[in-house]
């Protein structure tokens, strides 16, 4: 067992394993810290900054991102100090100006009492993507195909398929769709095909030979079959009929 440390979060003492991140420890104890770009399945990234907390170390207070800050002995953490709340509200204000019609952002803004963005309405945009990179990170770190990535720099940065053409390496698994925190990825199964519009793909769905349900893209099943060295026809039958 690895080394244990004791830290304080909002005045209460907790024990955690050294090397865990503040956000993990807080969530394990039911302490709510908002976050959009964090997912247990992938490495923390620190893009949305909503999970900021205020820590005290050697009598100095500073703001850190809890998804990336490893806990240590004697660490004092405040998850909702006035400084944290002030910054978090501004971050949501900025996100609201970018994603003025997005439901997830709207809901978070409501939780923090933000009625409307402080910035000039004429500059608002209706984006859904907050460029947290979860789609690309999941595709790389979980699926292992790196079919998409973040492209460009600064205000033009965003996820994209190579050269904005159909993402050839994509297996159509839809992990990006499920990982996206703000519903920015449009995926649809219809008439025997899976479409992920963001990456311009259209893949044929496999039909279960027993119940006839179209249950996953053929390309995805073929990828898994080869990866695990499974016999041909292994995925002819859907999990329900197996």
């Amino acid at each position, binding site marked *: 067992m690895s080394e244990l440390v004791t830290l304080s979060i909002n005045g209460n003492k907790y024990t955690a394993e050294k090397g865990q991140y503040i956000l993990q420890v807080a969530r394990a104890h039911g302490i709510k810290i908002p976050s959009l770009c964090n997912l247990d399945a992938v490495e923390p990234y620190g*893009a949305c900054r909503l999970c900021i907390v205020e820590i005290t170390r050697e009598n100095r207070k500073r703001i850190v991102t809890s998804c990336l800050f490893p806990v240590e002995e004697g660490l004092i953490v405040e998850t909702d100090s006035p*400084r944290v709340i002030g910054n978090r509200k*501004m971050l949501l204000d900025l996100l609201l100006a970018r994603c003025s019609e997005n439901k997830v952002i709207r809901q978070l803004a409501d939780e923090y009492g933000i009625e409307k963005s402080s*910035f000039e309405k004429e500059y608002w945009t209706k984006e859904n993507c907050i460029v947290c990179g979860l789609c690309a990170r999941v595709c790389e770190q979980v699926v292992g195909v790196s079919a998409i990535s973040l492209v460009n720099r600064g205000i033009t940065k965003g996820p994209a398929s190579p050269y904005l053409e159909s993402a050839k390496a994509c297996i159509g698994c839809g992990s990006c769709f499920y990982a996206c925190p703000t519903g920015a990825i449009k995926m649809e199964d219809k008439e025997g095909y899976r479409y992920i519009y963001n990456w311009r793909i259209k893949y044929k769905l496999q039909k279960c030979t027993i119940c006839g349900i179209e249950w996953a893209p053929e390309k995805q099943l073929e990828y898994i079959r080869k990866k695990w060295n499974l016999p041909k026809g292994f995925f002819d039958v859907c999990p329900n009929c197996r």
Partner: protein
Amino acid sequence: MPGKLKSPKELEALHKKLAKGLETDKARVSVCNGTACRPYGSNPVVEAFKAAIDKKGLADKVEFKVTGCHGFCERGPIAIVEPGNIFYQKIKPEDVPEILDKTVLNKQVISRLLFKEPITKAEITAQADLPFYKNQRRIILGNNVRIDPTNIEDYISIGGYSALAKALFDYQPTQIIDIVKQSGLRGRGGGGFTTGVKWESCRNAHGDIKYVIVNADEGDPGAYANEGLLTGNPHSVLEGLIIGAFAIGSHQGYIYVRNEYPLALKNITNAMEQARKLGLLGKNILGSGFDFDVRVNRGGGAFICGESTALMASLEGKVGEPRAKYTHTVEKGLWDRPSDLNNVETWANIPLIINNGADWFKKIGTPTNTGTKIFSLTGKVNNTGLVEVPMGIQLRDIIFNIGGGIREGKKFKAVQTGGPSGGCLPESMLDMPVDFDALTKVGSMMGSGGMIVMDENNCMVDIAKYYLSFLEEESCGKCVPCREGIKRMRQILNDITSGAGKESDLPLLEEVGHCLRDSALCQLGGSAPNPVLTTMQYFREEYIEHIKLKKCRAGVCKDLITFSITEEKCPDCGMCVKACPAEAITAVGKRKPVVLDQAKCIKCRTCYEVCKLGAVKIE
């Protein structure tokens, strides 16, 4: 070139031999062929010298040296003639035969080519007497004048690589770290972290493989101190790096140079090759048993790659994006291995500290800010160039004594230190000492040593907007506050400068600014609001004038100004009529003042610039 040097004795013997060569009666001409002098025409001057020396058969009588940057870029092309330390400025190829005939052969000074004091018009002969140089302390840059950067023998002749020999044979690695710690040297890239402590952490970090890195991705607009060093004295950086590698226990180094510095790339690559041939780089350096080699990597033009973690990502072949530094790079840096990254200037200080000792270094500067700092002095000062001053010098000394004051007798308004995310400081702060802590305290920073001087014709709101547009483009876009915050702040400033500003904009700008400082992922975002917050703090009245009175006192913001002709001053010379690209000005008859059509005027300022009589008025 001699073969591999196998011991410090062989290096010392080579040094003695080369140093002896310097003790000649020969006259010496050294011409600056640095990056700033080249567009002024230093290449043709160099060629003219070579041709004339050849033609006149003077090869035995004069030693001609083509060097890197001398610093006084404003006056290029520059040559120094020894003996006499005679400083010639703005030289043209046709002046060259005269310099050789009169000054080199007959020790006569050509007064036409001397520097003239702008106010008293007094001629100054010796370089050391020029106000620009007199008030500096050029421990690092000073050698640029003495050496041909493409020739390692020049560097060895003035004692080059003796610090390396001393470090390898007289000290244990930990002793070197102690010396650097005692010297108080702080990172010159802007962070100001104590170099010795950084080295020590890297040495103590777990892992067999460690890396040392030179950060030469100097991307601040107007800053070129690293370029001047790497181009003019590449061996000093390389020597410092090898010493650091030995102290830290690293066998592989990287030099990350921005690709926009072709000359620096060429000179450092050449320096590495020469050092390898002499056994100063590679396996078994000087017979010490210590192996170390280095690679040059070229940056691809992203400003953010000057940030240490982004630079390392870029070295790894990934997208140049910073990461959180909660685990320091000295523990987990390049390829997750302990890595020590220092700025070009930091590395160049190392040989001096090893050779002269920590006590010598500590005598320069102030107790908490030791040594010198190189600044790229640019903007509206008379003497632009690279200046090296002891830490703790007052801003006023740099701008008025070294810089020679403001151009065209205009009034000083602000000085911006530390690159695009530095702060703008007003006149009341000119007596402030220039060091890491003092600059940070007033909302600016040292950065990598940019120093841009502004006069009454600069609009501070417009300046803030300019830097934000730069940072908006150069932000990597990874984190929300930087990507979204800079954009929104720039939009607000756009509104203010175009006359659509509101009073509520000011507190909003402050709020976004503070959010960036607190919550951005890296220092680009964290320092990005500095130009806005400092101009709002020190020049608030200009913001209020823009918002309430729709007025730009500097006459810069196009939407808030109009151009008109002061009739009694206009003699109908026609200069503005010819120059106006919008054909908005027409002549209406002899000796009658010209007429400016407001509807056609595009407010480009051309008429204002060309009118020598001040008849164009900006309101």
